[in-house]
């Protein structure tokens, strides 16, 4: 048998909170577990400066949480493969997971824990200036812009958290938001309003990312007055939400109009033996706790499914 033909009990696509929790549960149930992760283990939470709403932890850095969960899964016996999943096949008694570099991986059950990725503004120069003034992670890159003027785009928890982190080190923080109300937590907003160096630019959108070699300024348009301005900044941190990443599975499992995977309450998809867990499935709340809960549900459902094969 070649390596790719060895059958794994539970193959988990995505090593974020949902996937890693599923790995812990499936491994503890005595199943062999393989995680396939296209970027880094840990998922979105590694970008959160502090997590203050996970039961049992008053405050923990996002990456520390992720690191501990990853170590826990590996210690339980889960294996991680860094590869990109490009397709999924149902062979009845088992599933085939196609990867970009490692061929086809076989498994008795598959858990799709692909989560969601950051949504770009979709403007010219955005890609080109990543690492040269454009960033999606204030916790990671904020310190490089100490005593500089920076902007944050968005109105949710991530944007408010980013602005708060930056307000401690940057000279001025412009918070650009398309509305005049915030979807982020009130507590975060209040903390932010106590900082004199935070300037709120509301009802406004970014229309241009300008610069020759690196980001130099942003074009801003007020949606109410139509007024346009150019804002000189050294960095822009974009935090306008996420989009799912499930195209590779669309032929096998049912998705909703936005690309999220449809499941029942036990995380089972429309295809027997394939489960979905975390932010990538249709659900109302997308939090760390719900990702962990989904991972638990999906892993135990997958174990039950395998036991009855």
């Amino acid at each position, binding site marked *: 048998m070649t390596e790719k033909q060895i059958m794994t009990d539970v193959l988990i696509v995505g090593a974020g909170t949902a996937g890693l929790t599923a790995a812990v549960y499936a491994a503890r149930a005595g199943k062999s577990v393989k995680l396939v992760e*296209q*970027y*880094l*283990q*840990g998922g979105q939470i*590694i*970008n959160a400066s502090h997590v203050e709403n996970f039961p049992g932890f008053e405050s923990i*850095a*996002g*990456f520390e949480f*992720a*690191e501990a969960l*990853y170590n826990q899964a590996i210690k339980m016996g889960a294996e*991680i493969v*860094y*590869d*990109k999943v490009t397709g999924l096949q149902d062979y009845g008694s088992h599933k085939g997971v196609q990867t*970009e*570099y490692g061929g086809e991986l076989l498994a008795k059950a598959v858990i799709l824990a692909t989560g969601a990725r950051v949504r770009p503004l979709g403007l010219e120069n955005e890609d080109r200036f*990543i*690492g*040269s003034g454009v*960033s999606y*992670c204030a*916790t*990671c*890159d904020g*310190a*490089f812009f100490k005593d500089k003027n920076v902007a944050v785009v968005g109105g949710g928890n991530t944007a408010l958290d980013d602005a708060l982190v930056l307000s401690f080190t940057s000279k001025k923080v412009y918070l650009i938001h398309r509305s005049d109300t915030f979807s982020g937590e009130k507590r975060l907003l209040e903390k932010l309003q106590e900082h004199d160096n935070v300037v709120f630019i509301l009802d406004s959108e970014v229309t241009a990312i300008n610069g020759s070699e690196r980001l130099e300024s942003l074009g801003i348009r007020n949606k109410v007055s139509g007024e346009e301005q150019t804002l000189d900044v050294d960095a822009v941190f974009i935090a306008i939400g996420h989009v799912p990443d499930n195209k590779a599975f669309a032929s096998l499992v049912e998705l909703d109009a936005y690309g999220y995977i449809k499941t029942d309450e036990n995380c089972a998809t429309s295809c027997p033996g394939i489960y979905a867990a975390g932010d990538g499935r249709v659900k109302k709340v997308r939090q760390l706790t719900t990702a962990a809960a989904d991972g638990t549900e999906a892993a135990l459902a997958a174990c039950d499914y395998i036991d009855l094969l």
Partner: protein
Amino acid sequence: MAVVHITNETFEKEVMQAEGKVLVDFWASWCGPCRMLGPVIDQLGSELTDVKVCKIDVDANQDLAAKYKVETIPTLVVFEGGKEVKRSVGVQPKPAILAMLK
């Protein structure tokens, strides 16, 4: 080969004067993605036989970070014969890092 931790003092000998390709990971302990990239860099360090894998802590070695204009971490730089030949900014998947080293 295990991952080699580089400082301002050892950079010249370990990286510039090294034979073959050297992969340098500019990182810091406060940077979540850098720390999460750690297991990938460690995996590469133990799997690659023809590339030297190194890490530079940008906090402890600010001169090197400034000299190589590292603004965002993690930044990965490939050196060969004392010259920078490739660079990537931000988190890279393992296959992309392997592609940089080809």
